[in-house]
């Protein structure tokens, strides 16, 4: 499908790249051509092989067969250093930062400014970083420890680092998965500024509506194979999705009525934390999905973590089914029937070195053990297989190590963990991060099902359409305070943004 006339015009070209891992043909004769001065989107379902292709381009892995060309010259990267030297800079799907180093130290690792030969010049380092961050308009401080930042801010560090290389080809693997709308627009601004007739961007995302905003063309792959390349301007989202999944998806946005009737299952009163959260009070009712919206750093994650005892509360009460419970750690929370799915998958979500099976049952082991503590491995296996097929986790078997799954499939694994646990109250913090459109739909359906079963669900999401689609009511946070709780019927994107940016916070506002 790639016409020969393009050769020579292409900045970066992939011809017939294949790669297999034990049990998986991750890429199968894949094609891609990135032209000078374009933003080229790459889409495909979870596990389609997008990240694998990027790993080959950055020299982390070697293809089994196939060729790459950079400016028409054969390009065979041997390691990440080599790729960087040739002007290819990558933001990987998984964050690759040093948590114990500062923002500045992370950005310039390997390129530290020096004074007198061997000595580092931290002043120069911080100066350059400040300059870079100002130029990019990113709200980061050079000497903050990266480990103290939220995922979203860490993602920004990655972006700043990738842009600081003055690369010719910038590859971004789901850079917006952890960002919300405002930050996404900032990023798009950066990308547009980056693109010149001499450079190009490969952009991977599961957020379909972003494609028309940022990309010139889009390449679709399925099961590791090249499907098609379209001009974004002359194609529709529906078209792209159907090529991606090979079937129709009903991405409708049903407006919901408030459930109103159910009894409150979870009531939070006057929750405070040391850092940010002030006097947050709300209720979630039986059968209800309560959405949490807000800008980055609004404190939604912090509310959830304090609620389940992962962080220390500074006052406030939590009642479940009307009875006050004392929660000082996540085990207490689980006992009280509250489960929390973290936004930070790698750090707080999965056991990378363990199997899918071990991961999905982690929260409910006692359910799978007999009274003597012996595991009933048949039941474990059955449950794991059940959820692997229910959530379409793309894996050769339930025994596969999670570290060998694609990012989206790892996320599905974490979701499955909480579905198996069967809590009365579920807090999902960015549950669809990195999940493809088709699978999102399945997760939405599951959440609806759970709500219909009478569970109370909190869904924290930075994806406003998702919040609007899923929530019965929507809580909006701004700077650690709850600024509004809206019924779905009354909520619009503008409305929510208004409350999310209301800096004159005078305590809890309810509608």
């Amino acid at each position, binding site marked *: 499908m790639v016409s020969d006339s393009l050769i020579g015009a292409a900045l970066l070209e992939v011809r017939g790249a294949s790669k*297999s891992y*034990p*049990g*998986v*043909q991750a890429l199968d004769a894949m094609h891609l051509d990135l032209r000078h001065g374009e933003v080229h989107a790459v889409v495909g379902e979870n596990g389609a092989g997008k990240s694998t292709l990027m790993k080959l381009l950055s020299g982390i892995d070697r293809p089994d067969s196939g060729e790459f060309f950079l400016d028409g010259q054969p390009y065979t990267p041997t390691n990440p250093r080599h790729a960087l030297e040739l002007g290819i800079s990558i933001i990987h799907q998984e964050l690759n930062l040093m948590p114990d180093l500062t923002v500045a130290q992370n950005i310039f690792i390997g390129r530290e400014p020096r004074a007198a030969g061997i000595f580092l010049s931290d002043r120069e380092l911080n100066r350059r970083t400040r300059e870079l961050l100002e130029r990019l308009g990113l709200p980061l401080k050079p000497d903050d420890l990266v480990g103290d930042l939220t995922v979203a801010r860490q993602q920004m560090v990655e972006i700043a680092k990738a842009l600081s290389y003055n690369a010719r080809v910038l590859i971004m693997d789901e850079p917006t998965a952890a960002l919300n709308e405002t930050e996404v627009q900032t990023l798009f601004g950066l990308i547009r500024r980056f693109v010149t007739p001499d450079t190009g961007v490969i952009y991977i995302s599961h957020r379909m509506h972003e494609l028309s905003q940022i990309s010139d063309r889009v390449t679709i792959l399925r099961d590791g194979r090249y499907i098609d390349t379209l001009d974004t301007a002359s194609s529709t989202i529906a078209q792209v999705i159907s090529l991606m999944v090979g079937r129709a998806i009903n991405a409708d946005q049903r407006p919901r009525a408030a459930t109103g009737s159910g009894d409150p299952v979870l009531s939070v009163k006057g929750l405070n934390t040391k850092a940010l959260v002030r006097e947050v009070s709300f209720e979630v009712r039986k059968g209800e999905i309560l959405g949490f919206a807000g800008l980055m750093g609004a404190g939604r994650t912090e509310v959830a973590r304090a609620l*389940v005892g*992962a962080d220390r509360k500074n006052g406030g009460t939590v009642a479940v089914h009307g009875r006050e419970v004392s929660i000082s*750690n*996540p*085990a207490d*929370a*689980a*006992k009280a029937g509250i*489960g*929390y799915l*973290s936004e930070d998958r790698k*750090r*707080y*979500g*999965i*056991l*990378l*070195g*363990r*199997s899918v099976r*071990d991961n999905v049952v*982690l*929260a409910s*082991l*006692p359910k799978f*053990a007999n009274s*003597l*503590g*012996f*595991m009933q*491995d048949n039941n474990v296996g059955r449950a794991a297989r059940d959820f692997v097929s229910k959530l379409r986790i793309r894996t*050769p*078997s339930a*025994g596969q190590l999670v570290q060998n799954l694609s990012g989206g499939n790892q996320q599905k694994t974490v979701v499955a*963990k909480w579905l198996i*646990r069967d809590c009365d109250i579920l807090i999902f913090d960015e549950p669809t991060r990195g999940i493809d459109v088709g699978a999102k739909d399945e997760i939405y359906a599951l959440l609806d099902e759970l709500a219909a079963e009478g569970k109370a669900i909190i869904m924290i999401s930075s994806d406003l359409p998702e919040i609007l689609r899923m929530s019965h009511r929507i809580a909006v946070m701004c700077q650690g305070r709850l600024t509004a709780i809206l019924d779905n019927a009354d909520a619009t994107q503008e409305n929510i943004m208004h409350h999310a940016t209301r800096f004159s916070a005078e305590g809890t506002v309810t509608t």
Partner: protein
Amino acid sequence: MTTISLKNRIPAKISGSLQQLFAFGSLIVILVFFSFASPYFFTTSNLVGILMAATVTGILALGTTFVIIAGGIDLSIGTGMILCGVMTGVFQTYWGWPVWAGVLGAVLFGGLIGFVNGFNISVLGIPPFIATLGMMLVASGLSLVISGTKPIYFKEHPEFQLLMNYSVIPGMRFPLGVLIFLILIVVAAVILAKTILGRYAYSIGSNEAATELSGVNVAKWKIIIYSMAGLFVGIAGVLAASRLSSAQPVGGMGLELEAIAAVVIGGTSLQGGKGSIVGTMIGALIVAVLTNGLRVTAVPQEWQSVVVGCVILVAVYMDILRRKRA
């Protein structure tokens, strides 16, 4: 595609034990080598002697496997074992308890040492290295203080020495202590592979924060894991005392390194989250067989540690090569 799906069908268990194959291969090579090098090596009594020599360190390594899989470390096992030996002497000789009570008491005392370690680590938040280093020093001093720096002899209970030495197979010197060791291996392997405790050990070692956020009471399980390691320490202490028919208050330092080495040679990562009892036992046997073989072939002692060091490096390197190729 066919080869790929075929590969998938090999159950994880078998490929898991294939993983051990090389370390096991090294062990076999060493066994074969010494069998040719000395006619006295591959005799029943020498092989039983090797097992007996491996018993104490091996039992310590069993408990340590759990601790290391859970991402911890235990430096107190060597001197803790000495202290448990002294305690069984105190119970039986000073306090006149019957043998069974003295043994049980000392084993539980080992559990108590482990419990304190677990408490210091989980509840007080002291890093495992420091917590167990502190305990190592305390235990080594207490052994001397409690015993008055003298061995305690089992004057009242000469039969206590049978615990290690009683011959279980008539006509053959197969000591009860070795049988206990073999039983403990099976018990430990079952606990690790089949019970919820084993699962939690792997989970905690793999990602403690994620395990905690999954609603698991990590503090509790860590205390249980260290306490269990402590029980193994108690058993090792009792068996060592039984073997010498006396509780020796000195020594034990360095045993922790031997036990940890057995675990790590067996493929368990100090990062936690991975490992197996089979691996640990192969690791322990490699060291025990090598040590015995070098003695039997009368290699000068100053060369022995050079050879042991090199063989460990080569064996582990071969293992890495093999995994890379696979």
